[in-house]
């Protein structure tokens, strides 16, 4: 099927192939929606021989993946997706899973003023960044909002190696669920603005800063603490059972045990408010 629609908000471009997706996404100020009625998962290796070898200029103002999963992104291009115009952009309901970002690529997304809503990302980040800012820009990973189709936030499962970072700018993570693994040799501080977000798995970075707000959770193994800070003003929990031997809870964070992390009263005692879940089949 070729592209249908006129690319406006009311009549977005409708695409269902990688080639049309690229064409639509590169159209300045376009609204794009993927037709996932027939195929909801695209196997990248089968679509693009040799992987991404040219940058994709992400000029569309809004791209709705409509639940599309692009599986196994890889490529030799220095940057895969670049959104350098100052126009705010939205990417929603799009999943990029099992990506393999090798060291030839400095950033998966490069740009500024991009808001990701209800997206999922997974794969391996070998050096460089998942998000690389352009001209001081940052990305926001957040929910679709109450008025959106799906209020859920973004989710991540990344394994880092080399000098990899999630982002080389202080991006915002709002209602994001993140699972990390691996170890990064990058000595710079990985700063994140976490709002109601959680990191599980393993912290890849020795230096970390949370400059967001609200309640956050780091329920992850921590092997090394060089420079950690929490300027969020909220409560950011650290699971003390997952701290390597000899490490203590960095200043500004709140240490709780695994048991306490599942105890609403214990969490309340340290200022972390947990809502009571309605019992299933309750009266």
């Amino acid at each position, binding site marked *: 099927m070729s592209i249908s629609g006129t690319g406006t908000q009311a009549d977005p471009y409708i695409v269902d192939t990688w080639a049309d997706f690229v064409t639509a996404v590169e159209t300045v100020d376009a609204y794009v929606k993927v037709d996932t009625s027939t195929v909801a998962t695209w196997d990248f290796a*089968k679509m693009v021989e040799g992987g991404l070898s040219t940058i994709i200029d992400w000029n569309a103002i809004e791209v709705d993946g409509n639940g599309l999963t692009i*599986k196994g992104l890889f490529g030799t291009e220095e940057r895969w997706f670049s959104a350098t115009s100052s126009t705010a952009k939205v990417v929603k309901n799009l999943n990029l899973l099992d990506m393999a970002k090798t060291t030839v690529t400095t950033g998966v997304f490069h740009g500024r003023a991009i808001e990701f809503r209800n997206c999922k990302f997974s794969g*391996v980040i*070998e050096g460089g960044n998942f998000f690389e800012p352009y001209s001081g820009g940052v990305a926001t990973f957040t929910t679709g909002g109450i008025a959106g189709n799906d209020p859920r936030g973004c989710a991540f499962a990344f394994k880092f190696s080399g000098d990899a970072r999630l982002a080389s700018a202080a991006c915002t993570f709002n209602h994001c669920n993140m*699972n990390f693994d691996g170890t990064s040799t990058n000595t710079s501080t990985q700063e994140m603005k976490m709002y*109601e977000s*959680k990191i599980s798995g393993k912290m890849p970075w020795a230096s970390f800063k949370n400059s967001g707000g609200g309640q956050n959770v780091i329920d992850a193994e921590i092997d090394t603490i060089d420079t950690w800070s929490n300027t969020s003003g909220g409560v950011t929990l650290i699971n003390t059972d997952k701290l390597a031997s000899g490490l203590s809870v960095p200043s500004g964070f709140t240490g709780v045990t695994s048991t306490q992390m599942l105890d609403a009263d214990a969490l309340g005692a340290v200022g972390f408010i*947990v809502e009571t879940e309605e019992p299933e089949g309750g009266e």
Partner: protein
Amino acid sequence: MGWIIHNNELLDSDFNDIPSFPSYPLAPALWRTGETLQTGLHYDLTFPSHPLAPALWRITERGLETGLFKVLPTPNQNWIIGDNGLQTKSMPDPIYLGAFANNPLLMQISIPKSVKSIGRYAFYGTRINYVKIARDCTYYPTSFPEGTLIEYYEEDDDTNG
């Protein structure tokens, strides 16, 4: 809206499920490049029909390696992509390997005269350089390391028989 404890997890009600980490099941039949790969050098391998992260596979001095796990440790040989997947040039199909195969500590053996058959790769990859077997004992060119001197028991030789 807010944090809840659900199924032994502290979660925010607006969370999306965490996607799975990439998994790399070995699919040897899909590894086809037609190239010979030298350990110690880095290659960006492309396995066109491999569904998972094709660019990530490399040959390093440690063997085939991905960002997630490492396999095929160390043998300092040439690697080749064959019908049975990634293998060293001289490596037989693992399913044929004998019990003593590739044991570098095995330097000397005594095979009784009564032994009439030796497996295809029974002593392949060992450091044996001499064996004595019965004249009617069948074996394969790959049963012993290349260059192994093979002698036969005399008819009236009861040694080790």
